[in-house]
């Protein structure tokens, strides 16, 4: 029970990097903020984890693992409750920072803690690696389901008891001896740099793909979560594929599959959830091949596990932060252009629509009103004016509606192209440090 509780809290802490992605439109509307403002709900957490974990790495030999894991869990629980009760965007960001600080302590110490709980450092590393990969990959899916079934606050309400139970459970855990000074394994730094780039690339798969299918293509969070679940499913399916591969083969193959999946998201030829799911499946296979192998190099059992754990956690979240810092402005700028193209394309569809003037003029005026009166963060319902004009029974009106929606969705999807391409580039950059790793069985 203790092991499961700690492992679950580690998975939740990793999932937290991306779990609020599907709730961003709700947060955007709830707090009446800007895109940059709401993006800090994700960025703040990852920045604090990256910085705090780097600081913990320097203090690793002075830390009492069990005590600091408890401090981490307590902070994470308090931060989660604070997030759920947030009354404003600044309050939510502050509590996300508290969560991030708790997550940094929890994630850095949990490798060693799990090793002590399962009785073997090797098995502890394997368990930590598994829950880390699955937690990160499942984040958006969990967030989507909770947001649609309840509310964005449910995301944080659910996390608090998971961390709270782990906190109570660790009070009965045996004390873990403090770490001796130990040199990190050769290649650990290269593995951490590669992991940083892989997690930077994950911004494309975990964040951008979710925004595309939910915000632009209008899928409900659960339906969007179903499409995105291709990624964690493929991540789990990739595990047997890695057996028998040399380290460099597994990492290079995984990184190339991840880059190919992101490139195929950049090159979508139509509005299709199936194509997105297939692309994400390639990303998931790549993650499932590369991340566990790189993690095992970064966290070798002979090295100091708290220090290694802290460094690898810091590297992953630094990669996420770097990518968010570069991708967010690129996406904002691309979507501005895409919005202009969408308006031009939409205007063409309305002008050329084979619909009589007595229907066309009211439709055009209602579309204008829908665009003007849309609340912040809310995609206006552009189907309604057509439905009110008889799209259900009139094929011409229905065709005009479908043409307009497809034109707008296609133009906006094209706006994601450069951000997906940048994410694919991050994946390819992971090849550079990965290729310096010695050839050994994965």
């Amino acid at each position, binding site marked *: 029970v203790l092991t499961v509780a700690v492992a679950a809290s580690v998975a939740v802490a990793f999932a937290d990097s991306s779990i609020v992605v599907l709730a961003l439109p709700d947060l955007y509307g709830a707090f009446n903020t800007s895109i940059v403002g709401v993006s800090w709900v994700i960025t703040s957490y990852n920045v604090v984890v990256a910085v705090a974990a780097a600081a913990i790495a320097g203090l690793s030999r002075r830390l009492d693992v069990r005590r600091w894991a408890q401090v981490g869990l307590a902070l994470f629980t308090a931060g989660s409750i604070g997030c759920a009760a947030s009354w404003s965007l600044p309050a939510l960001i502050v509590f996300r920072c508290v969560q991030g600080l708790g997550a940094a302590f929890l994630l850095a110490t949990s490798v060693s803690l799990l090793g002590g709980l399962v009785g073997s450092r090797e098995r502890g590393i394997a368990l930590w690696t598994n829950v880390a990969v699955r937690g990160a990959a499942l984040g958006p899916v969990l967030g989507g389901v909770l947001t649609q079934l309840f509310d964005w606050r449910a995301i944080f309400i659910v996390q608090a008891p998971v961390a709270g139970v782990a906190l109570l459970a660790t009070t009965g855990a045996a004390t873990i001896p403090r770490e001796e000074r130990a040199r990190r394994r050769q290649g650990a730094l290269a593995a951490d740099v590669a992991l940083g780039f892989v997690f930077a690339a994950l911004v494309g798969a975990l964040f951008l793909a979710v925004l595309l299918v939910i915000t632009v293509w209008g899928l409900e969070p659960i339906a969007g979560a179903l499409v995105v679940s291709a990624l964690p499913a493929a991540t789990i399916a990739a595990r047997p594929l890695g057996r028998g591969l040399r380290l460099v083969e*597994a990492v290079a193959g995984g990184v*190339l599959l991840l880059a190919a999946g992101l490139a195929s998201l950049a*090159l979508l*030829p139509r509005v299709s959830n199936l194509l997105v799911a297939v692309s994400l499946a390639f990303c998931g296979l790549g993650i499932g091949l590369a991340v566990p192998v790189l993690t095992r190099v970064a966290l070798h059992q002979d090295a100091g596990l708290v220090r290694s754990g802290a460094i690898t956690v810091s590297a992953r979240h630094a990669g996420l932060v770097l990518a968010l810092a570069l991708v967010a402005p690129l996406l904002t700028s691309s979507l501005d252009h895409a919005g202009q193209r969408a*308006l*031009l394309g939409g205007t063409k569809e309305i002008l*050329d629509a084979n*619909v009589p003037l007595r229907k066309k003029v009211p439709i055009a005026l209602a579309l204008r009103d829908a*665009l003007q009166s849309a609340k912040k963060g809310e995609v206006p319902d552009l189907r309604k004016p057509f439905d009110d004009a008889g799209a259900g029974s009139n094929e011409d009106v229905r065709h005009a509606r479908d043409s307009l929606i497809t034109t707008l969705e296609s*133009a906006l999807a094209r706006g994601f192209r450069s951000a997906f391409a940048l994410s694919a580039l991050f994946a390819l950059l992971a090849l550079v440090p990965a290729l310096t790793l010695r050839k050994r069985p994965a």
Partner: protein
Amino acid sequence: VRRLAVLLGLAVCFLVVELALGAIHFGEPKLADPCTSKPAFSGGGLDGEVQRFALSGLNGAACKLHTTREELVLSFVPAAGTKRVRWDRQTIEDALRSGFDQALHDTEQRGVAGFVIGHILEAVVGAPLDYFLG
């Protein structure tokens, strides 16, 4: 290693299929050249004639202003948030009048019926246009 090679091969094939399905031009609005294109509207009756006449007039005005008819239409809708109107009022007015004169000329080329229809359309479309241009 063979399974990994097959997966990588599948990923490359998937990218090729996407390119073959038109990925390069996906999401680009296909805006016609207003100087050479005819209205795509295919409806019949008086409604069809009115819409073709109005679209033809817009094409002529957009051609004169070296823009597209879509940009021209959106330039009159501040809420659209598109580029600011790049032309002064007199230039737009001249372009629209010239566009509709050209549309009238094109309609008149269709014989006696076209001549009659053209002048009716000029009255139908001209009144709201005069109102619109003030």
